[in-house]
Structure formats: structure tokens, C-alpha cells
């Protein structure tokens, strides 16, 4: 009964979106982090999603009808860190510059809203599947 599968599929999506929200929170928290060394400064992180095929429920073509989603890995943004002249900072290099993290707060905020929407949609899918299952169990009463 694939209605039960909805819980697995939507559950995996909730997990993936939670990781996405976590990286966003991490990026926003470190948006103002500075370092004297451009190699050590915080770089924005983004999760990469991948479809997770369900082989157990595969049909004769070996192709599963349902699949969840998983986080393949976290990639760091390769955008160059910004330099800022702050000779008073204890982290400043000899020329008086510090390197800012390359986090773009606007990008992070839109990413957060998108993750929020996706999360809510999947919760909705779980609730719908639960309602349908409960009504099916109550069939004929």
C-alpha cells in the first residue's frame, strides 16, 4: 500500500529541508565572521539534494515508483571573500585588512523561505496521507 510510503518519502524530504535550514542558520550566524587569512575565513555552505530511488518497491523494469530525497553533501561557496580595511581589528593582517565571509544574507533569506515552504508542503502531504489512511481504516463503519 503506497499510502504508507508517503510517510517515508515526505519524511526524507523533511530531513533534507531541515539540513538546508541548518546550513542557512549557520551561514547567517557567520555572515559577519572575519579572518586575517583568506584561506581560513568562513565560506557559505549549501546542501546538494539527490533523488533516492527505492529499489525495494521496484516494478518489473527495476524502476521504483517512489523515491525520497537525501543530502548528497555540503558544498562551500567559491565566491572570493571581501576585504575590508580595519587596522584596529586584532585579526587584521600586516596591511590592516580583514577578510569577510562570502555569505550573501539576501540569498540566505530567500533560501530560508524556500526551505520553509517545502517543509510545510511535505508536512501537508503527510497529514493528507494520514487522513486518507484513517478514513480507509474506518471503511464500512
Amino acid at each position, binding site marked *: 500500500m503506497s499510502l504508507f510510503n508517503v510517510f517515508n518519502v515526505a519524511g526524507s524530504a523533511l530531513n533534507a529541508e531541515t539540513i538546508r535550514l541548518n546550513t542557512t542558520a549557520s551561514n547567517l550566524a557567520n555572515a559577519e565572521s572575519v579572518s586575517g587569512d583568506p584561506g581560513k575565513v568562513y565560506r557559505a555552505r549549501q546542501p546538494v539534494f539527490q533523488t533516492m530511488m527505492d529499489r525495494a518497491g521496484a*516494478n518489473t523494469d527495476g524502476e521504483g515508483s517512489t523515491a525520497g530525497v537525501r543530502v548528497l553533501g555540503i558544498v562551500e561557496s567559491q565566491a572570493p571573500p571581501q576585504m575590508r580595511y580595519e587596522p584596529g581589528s586584532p585579526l587584521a593582517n600586516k596591511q590592516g585588512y580583514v577578510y569577510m565571509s562570502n555569505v550573501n544574507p539576501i540569498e540566505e533569506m530567500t533560501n530560508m523561505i524556500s526551505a520553509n515552504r517545502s517543509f510545510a508542503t511535505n508536512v501537508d502531504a503527510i497529514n493528507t496521507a494520514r487522513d486518507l489512511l484513517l478514513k480507509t481504516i474506518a471503511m464500512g463503519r
Partner: protein
Amino acid sequence: MFNNIFGIHEKALLLYGDRVGVLANNLANADTPGFKARDIDFRAVLAQTDSGAALPLAVTEPGHIVLNAGGPSSAALKYRNPYQASLDGNTVEMPVEQAAFAENNVRYQASLGFINDDIADLRLAIMGQ
């Protein structure tokens, strides 16, 4: 007499149940790059069911195992044509999928309602009151 009490609704309920899974899968992969949204070709599968063929999977080789709980066959699973494809190759369009999900939900409950009515009719006939 009791072979086909619920008519097409029994098969339709199973198919709507499968479709919930397929659509939930699309919703879950809304942010996955390269994912292609899929849906069940409902008319084709139900027509096949109506003409007496079995609902589940086709067995084309003697070694094939008949899986009844394996979900719809890939022949019934079609890729959705997006109104506007996104740059990362993902063809899930959230409003389209949500509308399909809601529609499927209503249809499932309608089939369930018809089955419940049939059960109530049978009960009335049995009890005679």
C-alpha cells in the same frame, strides 16, 4: 454475486492510493536538481483494469516475480511536461503538484464514499431494517 460489489471503485481506490505516493514523491523532490516530475496515466491504467486485465505489474519473462504491492508499472508512470522548465533540470512545479495532490485527495475520498454507501446498502439488505 459478491465478486464485484464495489464496481470500479475498488480498483480506483488502489490506483488513487498509488498516485498519492507518486505525487508526494514529486513534492519531496521539489528542490532536487535534475529531478523529473512523474504522474500516473490514470485513464490508460483504469481502461486496462476495466477490460479485465490485472491492475499491477506486467510479467514478460518466466523468471519475473509478480509483485502486487510494488506500485504502478513504469508504463503507467509518465513524465510531466513542465509549463516552464527550470535551469537546474527540475520539472516539479509546486502549484501544479499541489493542485494534483488536492484533486487526487478528493477523488480518493469520493471512491471511498461510494464504497461506504455500497456497504451501507448491503447492511440494509442483510438486516432488513
